[in-house]
């Protein structure tokens, strides 16, 4: 089942030369990371027999976690670099691909263990993935449960220009506007690194504001609420005032919830803005300036050619959307990576211009 997208590299003019802003290398297991840990943690993981830090958000066996024709013959989704290159890079003709590793370091209950796993992932991805293919870039994974350690990890790796972003789960222990998280925003801004918020939660607090959902259906559909919550928090707590150069990228958010959200945030702000007087511009303007979204998935009906154009018009900015396959997650079939109805000029921006503008370190590497 490894042969996909027959002829896509040459036949799909949409993706050739594009910048794929959301792909997921798989971590085979803790054993893979042990060489990148210090003596204490290497000993701890082995002696205590700890493994299986896959996220509850994307269990390796779940259908969403891997498109059937991208599922490796053995091992977890996204763990085979050769397959990753053949399917995700060669298959789409990708120019650059940003690896967003989703694994338990970002959510582990222990702050220091989480930080150790994150650091090991970063060093592993640099040594075994980024070094293996010049098209690959990566996000710095950081322990969301320990913002001061996250900031240290950003500092440790910011000098490696192949790391182009910082990665956090969209739902953490608190809303991201709280000052508790400001060390992360400060470090990211200092180094010109956008911060990607990826769908997924820590799953030790209810992932919806009304409690624990019973089913996958609810869990996945309601992710957009978390994106809305975090955006409102970042805007209303003044994070973009305090860190004016900070950029946030919403990964796997679904996109099409955005217009109604922007409209409502402006409407409400007009009436109550005096409680947050540092929010001096309509929230939609602030979000259009500071926030970008990957387009996998892009929740619009595939049989309505006008729906996508309507949403793009309502979003009101043609520099916000970034191309992504979400490889190997199962979001689309064959080579139909985007819904119909995107004007050619906008398409070119989504594929190339917007990612280059969002990630200054990509721009550097082609300058």
């Amino acid at each position: 089942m490894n042969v996909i997208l027959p002829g896509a590299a040459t036949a799909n003019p949409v993706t050739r030369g594009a910048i794929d802003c959301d792909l997921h290398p798989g971590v085979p297991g803790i054993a893979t990371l042990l060489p990148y840990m210090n003596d204490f943690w290497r000993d701890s993981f082995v002696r205590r027999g700890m493994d299986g830090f896959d996220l509850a958000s994307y269990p390796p066996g779940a259908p969403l976690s891997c498109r059937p024709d991208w599922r490796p013959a053995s091992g977890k989704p996204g763990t085979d670099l050769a397959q990753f290159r053949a399917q995700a890079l060669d298959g789409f003709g990708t120019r650059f691909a940003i690896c967003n590793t989703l694994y338990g370091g970002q959510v582990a209950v222990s702050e220091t263990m989480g930080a150790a796993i994150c650091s090991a992932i970063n060093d592993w991805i640099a040594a075994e993935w980024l070094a293996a293919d010049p098209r690959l870039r990566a996000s710095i994974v950081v322990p969301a449960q320990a913002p001061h350690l996250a900031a240290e990890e950003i500092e440790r790796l910011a000098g490696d220009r192949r790391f182009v972003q910082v990665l956090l789960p969209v739902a953490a222990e608190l809303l991201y506007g709280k000052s508790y998280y400001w060390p992360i925003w400060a470090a990211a801004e200092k180094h010109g690194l956008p911060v990607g918020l990826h769908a997924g939660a820590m799953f030790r607090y209810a992932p919806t504001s009304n409690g624990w959902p019973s089913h996958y259906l609810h869990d996945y559909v309601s992710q957009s609420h978390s994106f809305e919550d975090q955006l409102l928090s970042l805007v209303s707590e003044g994070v973009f005032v305090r860190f004016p150069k900070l950029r946030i990228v919403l990964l796997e958010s679904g996109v099409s919830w955005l217009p109604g959200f922007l409209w409502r945030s402006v409407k409400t702000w007009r009436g109550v803005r005096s409680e947050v007087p540092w929010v001096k511009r309509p929230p939609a303007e602030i979000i259009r300036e500071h926030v970008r979204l990957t387009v996998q998935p892009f929740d619009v009906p595939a049989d309505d050619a006008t729906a996508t154009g309507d949403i793009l018009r309502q979003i009101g900015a043609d520099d916000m959307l970034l191309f992504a396959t979400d490889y190997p997650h199962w979001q689309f079939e064959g080579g139909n990576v985007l819904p119909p109805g995107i004007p050619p000029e906008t398409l070119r921006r989504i594929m190339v211009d917007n990612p280059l503008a969002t990630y200054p370190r990509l721009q550097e590497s082609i300058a």
Partner: protein
Amino acid sequence: MSKHVVARVAELPPGERKLVTVKGRPIAVFNLDGEFFGLMNRCPHQGAPLCAGDLTGLMTADTPGEYQMSRPGEIIRCPWHGWEFDVRTGQSWCEPSRIKTKQVPVEIAAGEALVKGPYIAEKVAVAVEEDYLIVEV
């Protein structure tokens, strides 16, 4: 355009506002420390009577969490949805260039001058020893 006597100055002490009707149009007249300003009593959003809203100051902040309040009593908040308008200009705070309520010029005239005209004072009895508020509509 014509000028209308709408009230005695003494009726509207500093910090107060008064709703008057001229040519069938409701106008809110404000006294800001002895300066008088008139606004159409109609929020440009959905037509609420602005004069019935709270008069407040301007809340600003240069950084998150550091609140400042200035210009006390110079901002009227629409009673329906809380949009803020600058009493001095009629401009909204949220979108000053696009969303504003119409200003109505207000001036003070001595009763002595009013008796000579050309002012229209169908509702306010004019005495020569008093000062009056005049709006031009």
